């Protein structure tokens, strides 16, 4: 079957994405938007130096981000390396905050398929409810679409009940046309979410990349009826950037996507800026970084 994939015009996409960045989000809209953004966060730590202690601190922060502001909800999930899934699972049990794990040789994905699958199985066995896999950019850039899809299908199978988020690592794909193409591949292979970046490679979830992926999700849903979620990760480090991403989703996919089941923001540093901006809407002052614990 020959199907039109459709082109993406770089200038047009970036113009539209920038235009949506000019929406004025003030007063109650800002407060609600910040609460919404917090509820969609995948609070992430992906460092070589991560320890059980660090992950436990992060989990506590995830459940109750700001003890002084009770209306701030818990975040959606905590995202860690597979070896620390067990720790996170224990710390988050019964809290409603989900455990997500990167897998498949994150972030480069330059390991054998067997290793990728074992990585996934380990994370799921340790209690991960969500798996963030990376696509093989090596295969994608070499034009081997079937290999990319085959890997996603295989990983999805190992996920069992766990949700699969497919990381495209858009900064390495080279063009918006490729971003759209990879988005379609990932969705057709069964990804539950498509995700922009690992956060380890240059530009992350730029407004243009987000818009292209959101449009792909919309077109795929229109064509197949299947709902796929979106995760913006990498470079979303301020409240303004987070709210801009929410605007992109609201005006591309609609309000139905403004729920943590369909939309996530992967970040480590944005949470405290969200809290400080929220506090500012109440006190009128932008506080100090020390007002909120780092973890």
């Amino acid at each position, binding site marked *: 079957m020959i199907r*039109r994939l*459709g*082109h*993406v*015009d770089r*200038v*047009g*996409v970036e*113009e*539209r994405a920038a235009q949506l960045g*000019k*929406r*004025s*989000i*003030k*007063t*109650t*809209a*800002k407060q*609600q*938007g910040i*609460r*919404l953004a917090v*509820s969609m966060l995948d609070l992430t730590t992906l460092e070589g130096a991560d320890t059980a202690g660090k992950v436990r601190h992060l989990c506590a922060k995830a459940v109750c981000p700001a003890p002084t502001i009770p209306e701030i*909800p*818990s975040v*959606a999930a905590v995202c860690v390396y597979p070896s620390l899934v067990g720790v996170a699972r224990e710390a988050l049990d019964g809290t*409603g905050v*989900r455990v997500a794990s990167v897998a498949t040789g994150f972030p480069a994905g330059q390991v054998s398929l067997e290793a990728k699958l074992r990585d996934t199985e380990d994370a799921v066995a340790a209690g991960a409810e969500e798996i963030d896999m990376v696509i093989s950019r090596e295969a994608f850039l070499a034009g081997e679409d079937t290999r990319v899809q085959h890997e996603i299908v295989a990983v999805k199978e190992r996920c069992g009940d766990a949700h699969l988020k497919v990381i495209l690592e858009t900064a390495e794909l080279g063009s918006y046309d490729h971003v759209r193409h990879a988005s379609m591949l990932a969705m057709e292979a069964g990804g539950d979410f498509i995700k922009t970046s690992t956060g380890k490679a240059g530009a992350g979830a730029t407004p243009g990349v987000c818009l292209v992926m959101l*449009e792909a999700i919309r077109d795929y849903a*229109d064509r197949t009826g299947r709902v796929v979620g979106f995760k913006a990760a990498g470079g979303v480090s301020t409240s303004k950037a987070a709210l801009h991403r*929410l605007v992109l989703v*609201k*005006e591309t996919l609609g*309000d139905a996507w*403004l*729920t*943590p*089941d369909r939309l996530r923001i992967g970040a480590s540093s944005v949470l405290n800026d969200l809290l400080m901006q929220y506090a500012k809407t109440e006190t009128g002052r932008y506080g100090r970084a020390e007002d909120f614990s780092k973890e």
Partner: protein
Amino acid sequence: MSIETRTSIVWDYAPAPESADHVRLRDRYGVFIDGEFMDPAEGRYVPTINPATEEPIAEVGWASASDVGRAVEAARVAQARWAGLPGLERGKYLFRIARLIQERARELAVAETLDGGKPLRESRDVDIPLAAAHFFHYAGWADKLEYGVNAREVAPLGVVGQIVPWNFPLLMAAWKLAPALACGNTAILKPAETTPLTALMLGEIIQEAELPPGVVSILPGDGSAGATLVRAPGIDKIAFTGSTAVGRDIQAALAGRQVGLTLELGGKSANIIFEDAALDQAIEGIVNGIFFNQGHVCCAGSRLLIQESVQEEVIGKLWARMGRLRVGDPLDKNTDVGAINSAEQLERIETLVAAGEDEGASRRSIACELPERGYWFAPTLFTEVSPAHRIAVEEIFGPVVSVLTFRTQAEAIEKTNNSRYGLAAGIWTDKGSKAFEVARALQAGVVWQNTYNHFDPTAAFGGYKESGFGREGGPAGLRPYLRVVR
């Protein structure tokens, strides 16, 4: 516990109105002649109305024949000295005007929105910055005029009368004044009846820039003031932007007289969507082409030509996108579509839309809450339009797009050119060779490729056929204000 049950946060944008408190508006503006605001000779003041609320904003003096006479007299007196200044010095005045527009940008944007009903987003991001950009651009030309016309020796025409429309009040004033002044002409500007405010604020800016008296006069009023200006003795050139009917009248009035003329008139511009276009961006281009400034744009992409193979997809996407347009208070920073400029214009739109329905086209208007007072029209899409329908032929000048289809590239070109107008066109394709081939075949003064309604002071703008003649913008825009001496 599912995440869905844990959180249910409804999110919509809160009202974000731009404050109008900082705008220094007078209760009453006279006519601006010989560097001074003064009472109009016949003492007639008429309120200018905010079309979004129907509330009066300020009283504006309407010029009569004797005001026109005074302004022409002052312009004649000032012209020789103005033209005698070194180009560099004229350029400095224009740079000063450009900078003062930037300084008062926020005020001008709010005034433009109050007076004309356009969304603040547009007056703030398009109208005012572009107006300043035009003055900057032509300021740079003032001492290089001969290079704009193939190294010939040139001279100004003298006194020019300039009549501008209500859709981009300050921007059109800038398009007209900047090249005229750079070339050494003096000018009399007649702003539109419904939107005189920013032109009058420009009068204040001209005073602040210490432009020599008489170089620019500003005469608000209705069509009769414009008609008097056109027929006034002592005028060397008329530049008019507005409807084709009035343009015809002007050309007839000037027949047999030694008066230069440029006309920028109506349009029924085609926006052509090929099957290999980047469709999502094309949708944005369609929306920007027809809903920008409520469709009150002479080059609006009001005839949407879609290749049949993607017709369903494009219309589906367009209709979904239209549903996200935010219609309402023009001062709200999140408003996409504002108020219709006047009761008269609203009536014209309603008449043509009714004609479209009567002729059998299928109409869809988005469901949106429109304010009770003011003039409003919901963004509207017509499908099943035949090329013979009035809505496919006549300029509606409102937020109404008519969809036609084509099968081949040749048919797209044929349908685009099959119009009495020829102002602008848009081509959407990812294939470069096709874009250039089609662009060359279109009878349109402006052809946009993979964008629409993009304006730049360096680019020439103007029409073919009944869309007028003469170019504005860029070096081509100097030509209508210059005489080649040798």
